[in-house]
């Protein structure tokens, strides 16, 4: 695992894409096929089931280091990462790992069949055979979550450089349900295999947020304009009569959506549909919370099916009667899509409506209604555009409505993790209610590193009380909190749950007294919940 550890350190020590790419290509060029397939799997988020409970890792590491568990926990609290804490706390071994990545991964896999004593023996022996960095990587293989900034796209680029195969082909080959332990590098990556893997989805084409005035896009008639729905991007695939459903996270979710499977089965021809999977009832979309009840669990009960039925709002067609039509222009694909849907009417299949307006101001007016229709805004797709791979600028834009926002006071802070482990970077915000500050949202993103440091300094100097890792601070700082959705909640003191809360900006111009009230939040709840 020496080489893989070196790769991880190289990826970790730079933020430059080119340096990361070079490190990846070097690894692929030198690595064995078996190690390479693991590298691809691990860095694109395919991680085998955790073979050991993290609580055991802590205990074993503390005992190996001859330290009391509380001291391990104190250290973990400062480091913010379990794999790293274990790697640092163990006595130095003076060794470099002589086993390959493949061998280590197979070893970890074999642990599932072993009892705790044997597992402990294997893990602690492995630690003794490794350097600090190798231990860190090994522990990460167990606990998961490298977060070293290798996107699927970057992996594909590296593979393309390594093999000389086109990126689009490779990203298609990487999709799907392959299992690294049972997959050969040459079969997955080198051989064209579209026929042998019927279920394989196409990489999604993703839009960028609109950056300029829409007027600069030319006439609206050149654009296919649709509502942007707040669901899950998905592909419904029908090939050789079989139906598969994929979500954008590249997860095969066929069994979560029986309505859509049924719909797929009734289609009279093979096709791959791209659209939004959305909870929908009585002629209108339901909130995202409803959809969540469908993804969150493995078993879908009758009651859930009844309360939160789903539909596909289809907006694109990628494959039609067996041929890949992604290179065809949007408007032509749209004609095929309409054809398909018109001849296959089904309750769970909705054709995404095209908004036809002569002027952008007319379009903007419709965009203004998004929220009341439970949409997030509009999608603008150039009628002449082909279906590309990944996030690309130019032909597809999302023109979201501005997030809902509220001014709130920071009242609690916690240290972050990983990169922000010594900084107070996770905050809880409150609004006023009868002279009292009521917490209603947690947020940790949206500030610059510089601002985080500034808030961190404030927190450290203004701590009122400590509750475990949480610090209550002088209610002094005001932030504008943006969010995408709002729903009633019995689990929160405020009676409200927000979707995707984040800090939009630091309102240094506002005093805490000027922050919004709970009443204000409740009125938003009333407005935006009426879609139900």
């Amino acid at each position, binding site marked *: 695992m020496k080489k893989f550890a070196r790769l991880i350190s190289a990826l970790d020590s730079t933020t430059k894409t080119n340096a990361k790419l070079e490190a990846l290509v070097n690894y692929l060029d030198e690595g064995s096929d078996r190690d390479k397939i693991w590298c691809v799997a691990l860095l694109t988020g395919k991680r085998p089931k955790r073979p050991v409970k993290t609580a055991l890792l802590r205990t074993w590491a503390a005992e190996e280091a001859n330290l009391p568990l509380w001291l391990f926990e*104190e250290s973990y609290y400062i480091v913010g990462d379990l794999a790293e804490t274990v790697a640092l706390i163990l006595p130095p071994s003076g060794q470099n790992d002589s086993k390959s990545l493949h061998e280590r991964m197979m070893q970890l896999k074999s642990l599932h069949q072993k009892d705790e004593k044997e597992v402990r023996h294997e893990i602690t022996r492995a630690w003794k055979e490794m350097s600090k960095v190798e231990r860190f990587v090994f522990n990460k293989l167990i606990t998961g979550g490298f977060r070293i900034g290798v996107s699927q796209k970057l992996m594909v680029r590296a593979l393309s450089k390594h093999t000389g195969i086109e990126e689009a082909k490779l990203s298609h080959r990487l999709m799907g349900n392959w299992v690294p332990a049972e997959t050969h590098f040459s079969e997955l990556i080198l051989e064209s295999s579209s026929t042998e893997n019927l279920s394989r989805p196409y990489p999604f084409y993703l839009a960028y947020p609109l950056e300029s005035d829409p007027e600069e896009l030319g006439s609206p008639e050149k654009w296919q304009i649709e509502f942007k729905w707040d669901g899950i991007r998905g592909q419904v695939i029908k090939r050789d009569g079989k139906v598969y459903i994929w979500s954008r996270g590249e997860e095969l979710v066929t069994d979560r959506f029986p309505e859509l499977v049924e719909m797929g089965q009734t289609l009279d021809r093979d096709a791959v549909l791209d659209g939004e999977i959305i909870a929908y009832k009585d002629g209108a979309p339901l909130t995202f919370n409803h959809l969540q009840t469908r993804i969150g669990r493995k078993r879908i009960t009758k009651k859930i099916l009844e309360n939160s039925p789903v539909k596909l709002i289809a907006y694109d067609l990628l494959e039609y009667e067996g041929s890949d039509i992604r290179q065809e222009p949007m408007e032509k694909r749209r004609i095929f899509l309409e054809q398909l849907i018109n001849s296959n009417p089904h309750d769970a299949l909705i054709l995404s409506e095209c908004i036809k307006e002569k002027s952008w101001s007319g379009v903007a007016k419709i965009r203004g209604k998004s929220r009341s229709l439970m949409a997030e805004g509009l999608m603008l797709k150039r009628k002449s555009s082909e279906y590309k791979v990944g996030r690309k600028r130019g032909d597809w834009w999302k023109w979201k409505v501005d997030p809902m926002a509220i001014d709130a006071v920071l009242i609690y802070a916690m240290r972050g993790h990983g990169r922000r482990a010594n900084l107070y970077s996770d905050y809880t915000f409150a609004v006023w209610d009868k002279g009292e500050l009521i917490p209603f949202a947690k947020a940790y993103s949206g500030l610059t590193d510089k601002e985080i440091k500034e808030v961190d300094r404030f927190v450290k100097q203004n701590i009122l009380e400590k509750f475990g890792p949480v610090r209550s601070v002088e209610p002094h700082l005001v932030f504008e909190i943006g969010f995408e959705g709002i729903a009633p909640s019995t689990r929160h003191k405020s009676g409200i749950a927000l979707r995707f809360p984040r800090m939009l900006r630091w309102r240094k111009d506002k005093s805490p007294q000027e922050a919004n009230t709970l009443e204000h939040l409740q009125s938003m709840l009333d407005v935006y919940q009426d879609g139900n």
Partner: protein
Amino acid sequence: MSLITFTESGFYCEKADLYIDPWKPVKRALITHAHADHSRSGMNHYMAHLHSIPVMKHRLGDIDVQGVEYGETICVNGVNITFYPAGHVPGSAQIKLEHKSESWVIMGDYKLGSDGVSTPFEPVKCSHLVTESTFGLPIYNWEPQDEVMNTINKWWAENAASGVTSVMLGYAFGKAQRILANLDPSLGEIFVHGAIYHTNNALSEVGYKFPKTEYVTNETDKKRFRGAIILAPPSALGSTWIRKFKPFKVATASGWMALRGARRRRNVDKGFVLSDHADWTELNKAVTDSGAENIFVTHGYSNVFASWLKNKGLNAEVVKTAFEGELSEIGESTTAEPE
């Protein structure tokens, strides 16, 4: 009455009427070393190791200071005061104060390993020990200096081979000289930032010798920077001054670089783990070797380290001070807890 008490101004010896590393102006101050948080301005009279004096004067101006040798004992009103090497930076000392059967050692900042510049640490027996705990967690274990310096020299050589300038950041007093003394001068030219240049000059007054360096000025021919190494204080990062070395790679050397989070947060290409403070093993060894029954833990992870010592059956307690540990070296707060 204890020989040393902890006051608002710092550690105080009433019997001799003097303070050790005080943070408020007092009449008489003993100084462990010339770092800014231990040697502050405003004292009427200072006493410090001879090698601390030029740097103190450089920083504090014309002060009234008496120089002391290591091992030399000075008696003030029956209290014997002796300076012992602390191995932290040139001139750094542990200060021992003895009266009758009570003996105190105030260690200041220290490390046990020899760095090739400062006089190496010597263990001193006492009944009361005041120790720092900047890196008082078992996650901090330093590699031997030779290994770290090898990787630094290798980094420089690699940059030089690709025609890039190496900018190495380190605290202007202590870290910079330690790196300088262990660089491989055969790899290329060595330039220094003004802050380091002046510190080196001050140290050369008391006999310290370093490899040949050149002070970076506006007139220096920029072509010469290619392949060279530049030593600069951490504050140079992000300054306009650093831009003149383009294309360059920048690294920092600090104990904090042991943590991935800190490495990533610090906006540098490379972080070398090199500290002038004791690591976990050294802290424990120093405490054991002193034979002290009473341990007072100051700046750093003091709560954790004191609990650990208590756990081991020692009489340990936390003392709050205004010292900063290695914080000033990275210019950002990384303390465990706000004190």
